[in-house]
């Protein structure tokens, strides 16, 4: 078997072939081909033992089986919707999986078209005309939005205003990007989960470079006055950046209609299941910022026969050409996840996507109501419409409840001493009866 090859099972050389090739290059031994000073040579002894295919698979399956089997009601930035089998089947076709950045478009029309279609879907969802072909994740897309703002700033502004409830991990990424661009990140207050518009109004000034809001918020509340935020930003010539995801985009007010300049978020919410936080950043913006967009862009053109053809375009923005003046350092992105997101979106169609979005509203409402019926629990904490998730106030300390639920096979957030956060989607809705029963026991 491939497993009986010595050395790498993925190097096809027989000993005879190796010898013949060495003869061609005029060497007696492969070692001769290495031009490494003796002082820094290494003896290949990493101490990593090889396993055959079966052994590798068995060992890793055994290790991963150490993860407890449980149903998750966790959200707060990593969301899961049921990924249909067809997404796996199509995206795992090896031509897609084993290809790379489309430097030779003539033999990459298929992947380029898939990315062009992905971009088109994001354009339709946001109402803004320029979507890139993917970023790493929501947090880095937000960071890139801030640096885009810095590049296009018409004022001398350097303040980036973000909700006080912005998860620390997302904020931390943003702060790293901001620091490199000499920007500062500041929090604006929230009011019952949503942006506190009065407070924000008093904060926005001529030194404000960007205002960031999310819809839904990290607590699952749906913003109600985003247009006012957009106006506020526009009035002070700051950029308005909106964080969201494709499911929310299908139902909620479009970013274009509320005046967003840049939209970021996790598009991997569709197409990826639970992946320990792995995602896929979406990045959409206005036409006027086209030449400042980070990342890959696929455009339609024509080939010599005059037929429509797709190609990476506006590459002069990118690091391999513009180097330190590039719009970003991004090279390898999340293209394959974008492919999966596009397949998932297409499989859903507008009806299916809207059904998911409406369920995100209804199921959260229903679950909050059921949880509210439990003694010692009140939900939702915020008097808002919710999307997928909500807070529940608890009499008993929330961390204790979280741990007790964990023992019963349910994972939930304890966001502070007396508040839980629960997230429900089509992927765990079937388990809500069990959760409610367990919560009734331990709350």
């Amino acid at each position, binding site marked *: 078997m491939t497993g009986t090859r010595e050395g790498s099972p993925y190097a096809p050389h027989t000993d005879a072939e190796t010898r013949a090739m060495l003869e061609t290059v005029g060497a007696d031994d492969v070692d001769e081909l290495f031009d490494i000073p003796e002082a820094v040579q290494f003896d290949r002894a*990493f101490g990593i033992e090889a396993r055959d295919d079966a052994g590798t698979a068995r060992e890793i*399956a055994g290790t991963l089986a150490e993860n407890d089997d449980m149903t998750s009601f966790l959200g707060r930035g990593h969301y899961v919707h049921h990924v249909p089998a067809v997404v796996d089947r199509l*995206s795992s076709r090896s031509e897609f999986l084993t290809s790379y950045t489309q430097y030779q478009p003539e033999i990459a029309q298929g992947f380029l078209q898939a990315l062009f279609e992905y971009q088109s*879907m994001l354009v339709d969802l946001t109402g803004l005309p320029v979507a890139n072909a993917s970023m790493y994740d929501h947090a880095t897309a937000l960071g890139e939005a801030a640096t885009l703002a810095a590049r296009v700033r018409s004022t001398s502004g350097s303040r980036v205003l973000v909700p006080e409830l912005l998860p620390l991990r997302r904020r931390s990424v943003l702060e790293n990007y901001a620091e490199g661009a000499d920007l500062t990140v500041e929090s604006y207050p929230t009011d019952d989960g949503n942006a506190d518009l009065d407070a924000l109004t008093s904060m926005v000034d001529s030194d404000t470079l960007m205002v960031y809001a999310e819809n839904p918020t990290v607590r699952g509340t749906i913003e109600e006055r985003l247009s006012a935020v957009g106006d506020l930003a526009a009035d002070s010539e700051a950029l308005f950046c909106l964080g969201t995801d494709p499911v929310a985009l299908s139902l909620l007010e479009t970013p274009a209609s509320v005046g967003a300049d840049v939209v970021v978020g996790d598009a991997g919410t569709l197409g990826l299941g639970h992946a320990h936080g*792995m995602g896929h950043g979406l990045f959409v913006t206005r036409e006027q910022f086209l030449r400042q967009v980070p990342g890959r862009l696929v455009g339609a053109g024509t080939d010599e026969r005059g037929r429509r053809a797709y190609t990476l375009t506006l590459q002069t923005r990118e690091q391999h050409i513009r180097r330190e003046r590039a719009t970003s350092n991004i090279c390898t992105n999340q293209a394959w996840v974008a492919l999966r997101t596009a397949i998932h979106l297409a499989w859903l169609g507008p009806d299916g996507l*809207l059904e998911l979005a409406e369920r995100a509203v209804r199921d959260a409402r229903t679950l909050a109501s059921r949880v509210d019926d439990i003694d010692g629990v009140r939900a939702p904490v915020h008097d808002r419409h919710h999307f997928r998730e909500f807070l529940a106030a608890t009499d008993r300390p929330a961390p204790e409840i979280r741990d007790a639920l964990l023992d019963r096979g349910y994972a939930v957030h304890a966001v502070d001493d007396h508040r839980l956060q629960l997230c429900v989607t089509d992927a765990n809705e079937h388990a809500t009866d069990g959760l409610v029963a367990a919560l009734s026991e331990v709350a």
Partner: protein
Amino acid sequence: RYEPLLIEKRSETVEIDDAPLPEELTRDELTMAAPAEPELARHYTRLSQETYGVDSGPFPLGSCTMKYNPALLERVASDENAAVHPDRPDESVQGTLEVMATLQEWLGRIGGMDAVTLQPPAGAAGEYTGLLITRAYHEQRGEDRTEVVVPDSAHGTNFASAAMAGFDVVELPSGDDGRVNLEALEAAVGEETAALMLTNPNTLGLFERDIETVTEVVHDAGGLVYYDGANLNALLGQARPGDMGFDVMHYNVHKTFATPHGGGGPGAGPVGVREDLAPYLPAPHVRETDGGTYERYEPAHSIGKVHGFEGNWLVLLKAYAYIRRLGDEGLADASAKAVLNANYLAERIDFEVPYGPFHHEFVASAGDRDAADVAKHMLDHGVHPPTTKWPELVEEALMVEPTEAESRETLDLLVAAFDAAGDADADALESAPHRTTASRIDQVAAARSPRLSWRALDDGGSRTDP
């Protein structure tokens, strides 16, 4: 046959009027492609067939290490137990954390580094992370170092990452032998120097023979030395960046450790550091406790985060499987065969290779031909061409990295494709390719009037196509 856009095949517009939300909070309508599953399956099946991957044939794209992606890795990554939420408490995800801790450990041994973070989601993100660590390190020591030195032959990401991390870039001209010129280095390095970024072997495939001196010069000036892991597939088991004096490095798992490139990603770019830089690693980091369990924690002087969660986990899991499958001997053999393949291919083709001795990749010159034309001509031979026109040290560069996964037979196929282009006349070169899905695409025109979504199309749609 030309494949229409999905939305040209079947689209649907839905009015939104009975949503469970007040009307003012919702959009009015939604237009999307709406294929049935059979149509969806055929669409993407066809698109896949119009895409060239490693499974289609040789893919000697220089600096990209397009090696075979073992099927085993996909099987391992599809394990349901791998599908967890990042906020699951540590005690409930011991399997995931053990994989992460072990991968950190293995990568450390492979690079000769003392601590490794898995968080950066790509190679460029790894560079950026390494530079944030560099910045934090100097700041912590009260030093204000604003410059990063980068050789002119370095990957574009080095320059861009340095700029993104807030540094000024100092470009270092290469020596006549294609390597670092020590005099130029000494001139470039000083008290402003935060770091030197270097890949070794460099983008010409040459090992920096003076590497110990190079790292010493930078260290003497108080700077750190960063290793760009893009070329690590040349050195596995033969030499380790840590042993050469590098302080920080990233690993491209989609290059060196065979995780698939996926049409452009996801990859993963773990970063290794020497011991005194470990406190600066991103949060959370994973460690084994004295009790033999695994936990996440925040390093003392952590730079914070470079990814919203913990990086591209599913990619990291594949890298773990690859390393475990190969072990010491397999990894060393991968590099040995990668270097053998590059040398064999260079020897066989009728193109000049000005610099050597090279390792896993080499840069040939197309001479008076246009390197891009040579590449297009090669497409008609059913192979993927090399990287073109870079590095600029070589005139009309053809940067070739066959990887260890190619057999002599496929290398000979490449030889035929190279030499056919070498023998072709100007017309044949300029008009190529002819046998591909699309003929030569006018990229200048496409960039001049960008059409980035179906709504921007004005060509009448697929129906106009012959």
